[in-house]
């Protein structure tokens, strides 16, 4: 059966929503899935609400996650949870900053990648695939901090 995994990443312009969604799309790509990712540019640069949809599976048609059908909703800032809540399916999983201990992050800006660590607990990709995707999407100077953020969140005792 062609089961598609639907993920929505949301937040505000400048928080790294598009970067986080690029990494998720890339990890699915590296794992050999058909993958589509959709985003809205333009006005998003000016601090407004931004969201990006990632869908992967054996074969994906539409790049957009239908409302109420997201398996995972990753929100980078608490005040954007309500705005995007309609995306999540009734049995979907919400991943939000309260699940990560920000004081343990080397740089608070890595919250987007840290939340991917939390998300990764629910997905069947290997750590190697995640690390590879993180490296492919960030400049080298940021690799160490972000890989650490990923692991910190992934291995945190917090349950979601």
């Amino acid at each position, binding site marked *: 059966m062609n089961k598609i995994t639907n993920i929505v990443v949301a937040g505000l*312009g400048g928080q790294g929503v598009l970067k986080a969604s690029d990494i998720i799309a890339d990890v699915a790509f590296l794992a050999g899935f058909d993958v589509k990712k959709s985003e809205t540019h333009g006005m998003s640069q000016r601090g*407004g*609400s931004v969201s990006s949809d990632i869908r992967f599976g054996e074969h994906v048609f539409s790049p*957009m996650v*239908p409302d109420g059908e997201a398996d995972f909703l990753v929100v980078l800032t608490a005040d954007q949870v309500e*705005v995007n809540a309609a995306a999540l399916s009734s049995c979907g999983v919400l991943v939000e900053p309260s699940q990560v201990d920000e004081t343990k992050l080397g740089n608070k800006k890595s919250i987007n990648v840290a939340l991917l660590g939390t998300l990764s607990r629910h997905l069947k990709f290997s750590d190697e695939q995640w690390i590879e995707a993180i490296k492919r999407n960030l400049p080298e100077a940021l690799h160490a901090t972000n890989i650490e953020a990923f692991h910190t969140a992934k291995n945190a005792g917090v349950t979601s």
Partner: protein
Amino acid sequence: MDNKGKQLLNGDEAVAAAAFDAGITLGTGYPGTPSTEILEEFERLGGHAQWAPNEKVALEVGIGVAIAGGRTVVTMKHVGLNVAADPLFTVALMDIPGALVIVSADDPGMSSSQNEQDNRRYAVAAGVVMLEPSDAQEAYEFTLRAIEIAECWHLPVMLRLTTRVCHSKTLVMREGVSVPQSRVPEYVRNVSRRSMIPANARPAHKKLRESLAQIAQWNERSGPTEVIAGSGTLGIITSGISYQHVREAAPEASVLKIGMTHPLPMETIERFAATVDRCIAIEEGDPYLYEAIRTAGIEVEDKPSMYRFGELNIQRVRRIIAGDCSTEAKPVPGKPPALCPGCPHRTVFTSLKALNCIVSGDIGCYGLGVLPPFEAIDISVCMGASIGVGLGLRHALAEPEAKRVISVIGDGTFFHSGLTGIAEMVYNPPKTGHVVLLLDNGTTAMTGMQEHPGTGRTLDHHKTGKILIEEVIKSMGIKNVHIVDATRDPAAFEGLIQSSLDKSELSVIINRRPCLLAVKSIKEYEKCNEQNN
């Protein structure tokens, strides 16, 4: 499953990859969401790309390249084609041996635009061949096919993208797609087919219609059309991104996906429609396919009118098929975009609001001056309109109100289409004079910090000729030209605006302070260019 040999690209990047693989001689265009990344990516891949002052000039440069036998992609957002429409309608009549591919990136739903015009109408109005990809793979393939078709028929070809094709990443396989062989440009004179005086244009128009009839036949036989055989009860005719939503919303339906949507393969459509009990045209925006198919006398349903507005998606396609016209759930309003903290435009709009100005605005970041907390802009139409509209208000209003009118335009927009507004102002000055406030932040900020003729740097940020705004304005005959920085001294700025409004003369006030987001990069480019000198 394996993605060997594939890349994850968005539609813009896929067009750029095709342009690069096809050895495009020159890519030119004007930045505009969602088309901007095409030329930036083409340049990054190693192609020769440049920003033109506006879309009309870009298309004209492209025409020259194609007349010389070269290949070109000319990129713009949908409203940019309005600016380029003049050359478009006439180049359609001409014999151009090279490949002229015009990319129109439409924005249904207006994620970052002032209207949601459907540029498929342009293909019909101008008589231009049009291809519509539905994902990045097709964006890659259709760009190459557009080049082939253009060179085969010596006609321009439009590639119509939409926001969701431009900004969705999907898998792209470049290997195995045939790339048309390029030729070395050379000039071959053909005056009767290239100089469109009436005596030449009359037969050229007839020739164009003959060519389009032949291309329609080619489209029937060999066009990029796909038929998905499904149920006999429901048939869907679609194109572009709508196809992707359709396949998921109605996996059981028979689907006809049209890749070349002008001229349409009407015989193929008729045959398809005859195989199903119920046939619906599902398309984003205008009922373009529906109207054409009905005009041909073929039975087809249109989507309910409420779905003409905004983008389609899987849910909306499900509703269209079900004939569901009940009110759609309203999305929870998100945080609107705002001028950045520390943005040089902020002080400006605070002052204009305090002075109770009637503000004729323009297109750019400063359009955000419409929204709270500023609510300082009264009118915005299209690129460059601030000056003309402001002058019109001045001519029509009684003096006390006329003297409150100010036009606000950015530096990029000024070079795009503000120069002719200044010419109008000097030529037909209102009795009360006029004040133009030029917000010079040293970049085309809204679309992501692109260069323009006033920055003195090319698309790839290398040093080039630089036009000084104040010198141009002075030489056009404006005597009161002031260069200020409102952020540094808001009170002096406000005083200058007020005294200029009081004067009954023509004034241009240039507020010069670089965009906060661009200032670091600008310094790096300048340093780099100095070292290379």
